[in-house]
């Protein structure tokens, strides 16, 4: 398209401003969704437009396939991304934290979406450098679609039903396509119960991401100690147990695998070594336990005791993402705990199977 054939910019601007004026935007421009565009989204699924795909009981709102399609279109998704949006939303709604008060929480958690399988290349996901973004349309627009669904279909808006104290960088923008090609380990979707080779989406909520830059040692155990130090910081501890995943860069993952570590070995090592002494916890006012909640207990008797904080391998999800150009991995701080499940992508409907697109407006 030459500049003279480009669409009328004033019409485009008017559509964008209309969406702002309705209060639909997350702050960035939206693509105005039209019936023909949304029909293209709905044609990628055999699910009926009025099927309810998520309900938030406490606010009395739900989301249908149709509303998800409108929000995905507005987020800038292409129609062919829609099966991934639906799988990501299904995956999130399996997470207890997302069904409960997560979207309203003062912690303002971000979904982390992990995509596995052939769909990564079919749709042009970024599977290497800059895994946390930005720069790639599917990685950027699919999590944004989830954010718009929460805002518009569930009606959870900042300062009203959404009460994030500070929020975090990256809310509605974290969608990793695992670097399966350079990972020494089986894909993450297999940990979530899916067979090899299947396109699937996993999701959980994060409170933040914290880098571990260790290009300093050839010793994999030293790298693990460095990661354990980040996982074990007291500021992130609020309950007896915590959950922290690691998004390994290929270099760290290959170093560990080369030394004989399977994923389960890394998880076991971190479960064993992550934690703090009673004295460290007391110094930060988090040594006491009332039920599962931590509180400041003046009792010094457990000062010398080392307290472990990761109760099971499911609390230490491991993903491989990013480029192989530096030894920089990311600790991802899970809000609540990951369900341990991956959601397979539904196959595209055959021509005859598509539901009649009777759009409701």
């Amino acid at each position, binding site marked *: 398209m030459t500049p003279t054939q480009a669409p009328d910019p004033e019409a485009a601007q008017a*559509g964008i401003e*209309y*969406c702002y004026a*309705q209060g*639909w935007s997350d702050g960035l421009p939206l693509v*105005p*969704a*039209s*019936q*023909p565009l*949304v029909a293209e989204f709905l044609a990628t699924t055999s699910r009926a437009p009025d099927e309810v795909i998520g309900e938030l*009981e*406490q*606010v*009395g*709102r*739900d*989301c*249908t396939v149709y*509303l998800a399609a*409108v*929000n995905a*279109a*507005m987020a800038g998704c292409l129609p062919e991304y829609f099966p991934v949006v639906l799988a990501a939303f299904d995956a999130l709604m399996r997470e207890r934290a997302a069904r*409960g*008060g*997560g979207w*309203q*929480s*003062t912690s303002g958690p971000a979904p982390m979406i992990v995509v596995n399988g052939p769909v990564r290349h079919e749709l042009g996901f970024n599977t290497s450098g800059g895994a946390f973004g930005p720069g790639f349309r599917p990685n950027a627009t699919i999590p944004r679609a989830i954010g*718009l669904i929460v805002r*518009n*279909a569930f*009606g959870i808006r900042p*300062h*009203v*039903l*959404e*009460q*994030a104290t500070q929020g975090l960088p990256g809310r509605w923008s974290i969608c990793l396509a695992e670097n399966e090609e350079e990972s020494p380990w089986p894909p993450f979707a297999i940990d979530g119960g899916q067979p090899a080779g299947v396109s699937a989406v996993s999701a959980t909520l994060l409170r933040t991401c914290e880098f571990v830059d260790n290009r300093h040692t050839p010793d994999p155990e030293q790298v693990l100690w460095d990661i354990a130090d980040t996982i074990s910081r007291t500021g992130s501890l609020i309950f007896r147990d915590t959950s922290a995943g690691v998004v390994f860069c290929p270099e760290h993952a290959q170093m560990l695998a080369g030394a004989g570590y399977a994923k389960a070995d890394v998880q076991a090592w971190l479960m064993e070594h992550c934690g703090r002494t009673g004295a460290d916890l007391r110094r930060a006012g988090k040594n006491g336990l009332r*039920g599962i*909640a931590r*509180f400041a207990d003046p009792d010094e008797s457990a000062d010398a005791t080392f307290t472990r904080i990761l109760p099971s391998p499911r609390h230490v999800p491991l993903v491989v993402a990013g480029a192989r150009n530096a030894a920089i991995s990311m600790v991802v701080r899970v809000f609540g705990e990951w369900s341990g499940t991956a959601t397979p992508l539904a196959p595209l409907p055959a021509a005859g199977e598509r539901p009649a697109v009777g759009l*409701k*407006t």
Partner: protein
Amino acid sequence: MPALPSRETTPGPPNLILDPTGTTTTTRTAKPRAPRARRPASLRGATVGLLVNTKQNAAPFLDELGRLLKERYGATGLVARTKVDFAQPAPDELIKEMAASCDVIVTGIGDCGSCSASAVADGIAFEASNLPAAAICSDAFGVTADAMAELHGAPGYRYATTPHPVAVLTPDQVRERAAQVLDDVVALLTA
């Protein structure tokens, strides 16, 4: 062959920008006004329900309120229950149980994004079971509590507030706070 209608006279359905909220397509925005329970003239002889939402200091706060309601306002019984899932509405069985065994109920403390809204939603649900309720929220969560009341058909629903923060108060400070909010709670529960 009849002439085809011109585009000017019979335009097809207009190509509108679609609404992503769904609220214009349902009746859920037009909720009936939520009912309010009939209030007793006083708490003398009353059994008071205490619904603790597990937030830090909620239990000692409501315990102290219960003690003061007995000591100063003549309440005679206390029924304390805990709502573990603080973000979610109180389960129906719990609402039925409290409505059957209590004359009034106090719920809280709303001290987080979801539980403040939820404490108010529970208060409104108790009212619908004819159980006068007083929800208590930290004053940092007024907007979300009010928004929840509106969602549940009770715009302007009144609840008691205590200054933020609550979680870090010492036991003595918690007792002080309970005493400070006591009269507001009684005013919410009685006619």
